[in-house]
């Protein structure tokens, strides 16, 4: 158990009850159980307590959002998703502290939405509001009418969180020789020099909403610097080991997004150009088996309705410039998403299916679910995560992890 987290929550609760000023408390309690289709074993047993403490005034505000996840019997995972102070001025606001930042117009795809890293310990399965992690940052928003200039500085880099090697979501890399990892260069020391900076201009108009952004960041995913060890005792080199040094590198990003309505259909688009990303390569002449390339990542999407069914679809493409055929990644990567949602019984019964479709590997993640709201605070959800397709694909690799699950949630 994380004692520090519990103490903090207790202090927050205590302060709420002892403080005469009214602090708002909201949140939810949720139980979430999933069973693997093939094995019949529980793939997840999770109880969640989410608390939101907030107080807002004319000039200042604060929010604290601790979340506790109890896994299996007594494995407690504590996350302080957000803990920040807001200061409001006439034309600008300042937010300091741990916060989540959401940019862009895409749904379920992270293109310009790269300020807050992701928690991928359960792949892409957590709700989108829970998959982002908070970053400790200073954010300044300057307002000009319906336009906003947003500047963010993140002195402490937080990488994407990945599954541990005992997790069902961990895919063991296929190495040609036994690897040895050196993690000494995987940490980024907080400093002025290592600060991540982001800038965004956004506008909301009657014709179109758009954002233009840029960032000088660290690649959330470390590049694997690989040194090969050869045994020369037989006269010809034999690969006997790999020394792998994960290391984060700087990344420059520029992009934008838009959203507009055309005859009742919402058209969305988002694109980002990534400068100097390290990719793995099989080129024997490449240093550390890495090669630096620029790439483009973009999405176009439509939201529309047919009768009372709400539909949304997106096409996503990633393209590597100046492609080298020895690179591990393909030159193009094409993905699509599809969402259909139908609300019935006065918005108490919700039917939904969401799907990621890998267009290159013919694989997919299909997520049907049905939610019934017994009342305004209590809901039951039954759903399934179905992974299909080739094991080489991003979704097909988890074909042994297809599951059916239930969530019961009480909001307050």
């Amino acid at each position, binding site marked *: 158990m994380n004692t520090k987290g519990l103490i903090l929550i207790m202090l927050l609760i205590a302060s709420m009850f002892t403080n005469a000023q009214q602090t708002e408390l909201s949140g939810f309690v949720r139980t979430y159980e999933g069973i693997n289709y093939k094995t019949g074993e529980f793939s997840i047993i999770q109880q969640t307590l989410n608390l939101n403490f907030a107080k807002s005034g004319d000039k200042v505000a604060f929010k604290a959002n601790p979340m506790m996840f109890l896994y299996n019997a007594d494995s407690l995972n504590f996350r302080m998703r957000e803990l920040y102070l807001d200061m409001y001025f006439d034309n600008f606001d300042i937010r300091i502290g741990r916060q989540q930042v959401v940019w862009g117009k895409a749904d379920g795809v992270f293109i310009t939405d790269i300020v807050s890293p992701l928690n991928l310990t359960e792949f892409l399965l957590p709700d989108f509001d829970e998959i982002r992690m908070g970053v400790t940052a200073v954010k300044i928003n300057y307002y000009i009418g319906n336009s906003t200039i947003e500047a963010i500085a993140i002195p402490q880099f937080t990488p994407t969180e990945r599954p541990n090697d005992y997790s069902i979501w961990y895919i063991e890399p296929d190495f040609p020789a036994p690897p040895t990892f050196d993690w000494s260069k995987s940490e980024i020391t907080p400093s002025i020099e290592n600060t991540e900076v982001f800038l965004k201009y956004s506008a909301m108009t009657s014709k179109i909403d758009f954002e233009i952004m840029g960032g000088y960041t660290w690649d959330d995913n470390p590049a694997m610097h690989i040194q090969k060890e050869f045994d020369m005792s037989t006269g010809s080199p034999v690969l006997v080991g790999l020394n792998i040094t994960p290391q984060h590198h700087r990344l420059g990003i520029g992009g934008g997004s838009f959203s507009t309505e055309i005859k009742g259909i919402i058209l969305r688009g988002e694109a980002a150009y990534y400068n100097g990303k390290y990719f793995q390569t099989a080129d024997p002449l490449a240093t550390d088996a890495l090669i630096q390339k620029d790439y483009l990542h973009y999405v176009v999407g439509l939201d529309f309705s047919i009768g009372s069914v709400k539909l949304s679809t997106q096409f996503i493409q990633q393209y590597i410039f100046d492609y080298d055929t020895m690179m591990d990644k393909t030159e193009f990567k094409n993905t699509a998403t599809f969402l259909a949602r139908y609300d019935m019984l006065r*918005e108490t019964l919700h039917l939904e299916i969401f799907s990621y479709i890998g267009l290159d590997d013919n694989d997919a993640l299909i997520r049907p679910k049905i939610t019934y709201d017994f009342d305004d605070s209590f809901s039951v959800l039954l759903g399934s995560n179905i992974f299909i397709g080739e094991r080489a694909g991003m979704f097909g690799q988890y074909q042994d992890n297809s599951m059916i699950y239930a969530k019961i949630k009480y909001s307050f």
Partner: protein
Amino acid sequence: MINLKTIAAAILIIVAGFSANAQLTGTQIVEKAYNRATGDDQTSTLTMTLTNKQGKQRIREIMQFTKYLGEIEKSIMFFKSPADVKNTSFMSWSYDSDKNDDQWIYLPAIKKTKRISSDSKSDYFMGSDFTYDDLGDRKLNADTHKLLREETINEKACYVVESVSKDEEYMYTKTITWINKLNFIGVKKEFYDEDDDLLKVLTIKKYKEVSGFWVITNSEMKNVQKDHKTSIVLSNVEVNTGVSASKFTERMMMRGM
């Protein structure tokens, strides 16, 4: 499309400053109702109570602001309850011209403001008996209006006006509205479905004068086919308090009230 003007007006149809006149046509009567004076801005707390045929109730509470800026009417709603939609906000810009409304919703869980289509006017609002169109500014020329008769209900002499949609696909084949001859406040409205059967009845239960403007403060929509009803009660109503135009921005949607 949802805005205070019509939560207080289209629902109720208040026509101010016009004396009763038997020579009026149906269109003129409805036009006077639509063009009533409502002030430059309005603020109120809206409590919506949904009651099913078993008597079980669900309650939604919303803080709302509206401001009229020339040919644009801007409104913003902050959802206070139930818990699962708390701090969600909804903003709408409506235009006097034929331009479609612009609408956005801010979802606090995903911290995202999304532009949404204004094309779903026949959808029901938050599971209530009001569609977005019932609550919003339906354009005057979207229907053909005909004065059917004059009739007294609840001791009020009323014009009875039939409005037939020009769009054959519209969810109501017609509506019939009872409008008070003295103050031109709508007191009752019937909605007929595609089979021309009575579907819903809107009853204005209470209205009051705030800063010189009539505001409907209590109304009820009953679905007679489903035996389900929704009441809307407005409280803390303020008119012409000088609500800032900066209230109707993404900044405020995200920040809240």
